[in-house]
């Protein structure tokens, strides 16, 4: 049979390789896509994708200037430092902290108001006609003048409070007027590390939760640690200096619960590293190590 008489064969496409430019283009797109995803996605954080609940909330996040910026920054400081007890709504919490909304304490002069976060406040007081008898640590002692001014401004202008904003200069003046009680730099230089650590212990109000001598015993309902804030007198046994200062710096936001179904224990260890400086931390560790009772070695 000659070639011409063969039946027609079904035509097929010739095999050919995928052009390299397509491969390159796809890889470039993958690279750009990954970069874009990385920069703009906020990963899989729910907050990034959740819609704003109102136009007001959206407006809250817009850039501000002048007093508005100061107050917006104050809100951040407030919610980090004060809100846990006084409530983000400024209404306070029963048996924990009095309200700031409508409080006559907020309407006082700047020095009197600044005294509370800078020195803490203990004992019986009256707020808006109601009696309170609690203890507050000097939570604002470690804030910068700018942060202190911002947070005071926020408090004085929010929740119906009508006092004006506070400038960083006002905050500096108030701090200077108040710090007359604490030891001077010269005093501190003369003290031993343990003595300085004791000052640090008092300055930041560690005693409010851990007891005046660090012996603990303050109730912390539903905490796994026998519903108590732990004593500190044996930290010398359980920590070396690096471990202890690291722990104090990081704090412990989530306290294990005695009953997992029960409520969150009200007290937690704040992240002191943001507030207490390194020298103070080292002195504090020396003070805490000095608390260990003599003759309490357990033999291992």
């Amino acid at each position, binding site marked *: 049979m000659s070639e011409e008489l063969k039946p027609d064969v079904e035509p097929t496409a010739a095999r050919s390789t995928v052009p*390299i430019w397509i*491969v*390159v283009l796809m*890889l*470039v797109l*993958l*690279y750009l896509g*990954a*970069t874009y995803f*990385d920069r703009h996605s906020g*990963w899989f954080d729910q907050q990034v994708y959740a819609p704003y609940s109102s136009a007001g909330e959206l407006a809250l996040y817009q850039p501000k200037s002048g007093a508005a910026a100061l107050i917006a920054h104050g809100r951040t400081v407030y919610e980090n430092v004060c809100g846990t007890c006084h409530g983000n709504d400024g209404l306070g919490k029963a048996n924990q902290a009095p309200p700031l909304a409508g409080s006559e304490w907020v309407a006082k002069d700047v020095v009197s108001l600044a005294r509370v976060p800078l020195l803490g406040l203990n004992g019986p007081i009256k707020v808006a006609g109601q009696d309170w008898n609690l203890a507050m640590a000097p939570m604002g002692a470690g804030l910068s003048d700018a942060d202190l001014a911002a947070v005071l401004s926020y408090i004085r202008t929010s929740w119906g409070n009508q006092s004006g904003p506070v400038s960083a200069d006002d905050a500096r003046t108030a701090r200077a007027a108040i710090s007359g009680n604490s030891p001077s730099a010269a005093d501190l230089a003369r003290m031993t590390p343990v003595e300085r650590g004791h000052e640090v212990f008092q300055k930041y109000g560690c005693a409010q939760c851990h007891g005046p001598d660090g012996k*603990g015993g303050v109730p912390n309902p539903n905490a*796994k*640690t*026998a*519903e*108590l804030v*732990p*004593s500190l007198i*044996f930290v010398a*046994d*359980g*920590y*070396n200096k690096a*471990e202890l200062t690291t722990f104090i710096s*990081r704090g412990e936001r989530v306290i*294990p619960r005695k009953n997992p179904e029960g409520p969150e224990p009200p007290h937690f260890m704040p992240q002191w590293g943001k507030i207490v400086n390194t020298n103070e931390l080292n002195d504090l560790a020396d003070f805490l190590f000095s608390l260990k009772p003599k003759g309490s070695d*357990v*033999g*291992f």
Partner: protein
Amino acid sequence: MKNKFGVFLLGVATLTLLSAVVARAEDQLDAETKARIEKFEKGPATIDVSKYPQGIQDNYEVFSSKCTQCHKLSRPINSDFVMPDEWSRYVKRMMRKPGSGIDSADGKKIYEFLVFDSSVRKKAMLDEKLAKATPEEKTAAEAKIKEVHDKYDK
């Protein structure tokens, strides 16, 4: 040659993603500790103590009953603590927690078990840490390990 370019691009893309993940992890101070604990807890939750001396086997019972009150046993079993001073601090730290229910006699048994076990089951890790320690630390650690072995090895 052409292939190499594709591999190069894919590599770049992978690295970008990876580095983003790493940067993300560093944001959280505690993430590292958390990850360490999770890794430990994924390991085995028991130790075969049948070849250990009887006293150490008894101490293992104390260890497994006391320590599981608050956390999984796999956490200490697979942890990277091996040095006697590490165990001494951690056992005391746990013991001093209010309501731990561990008295100093039990604490000592747990400590001795952990030191013994680390010197056998985690010997490689222990030797590595001893090699990195200062001469004084090394001598002190070896003395403490010997103390436990002398007490229990018969």
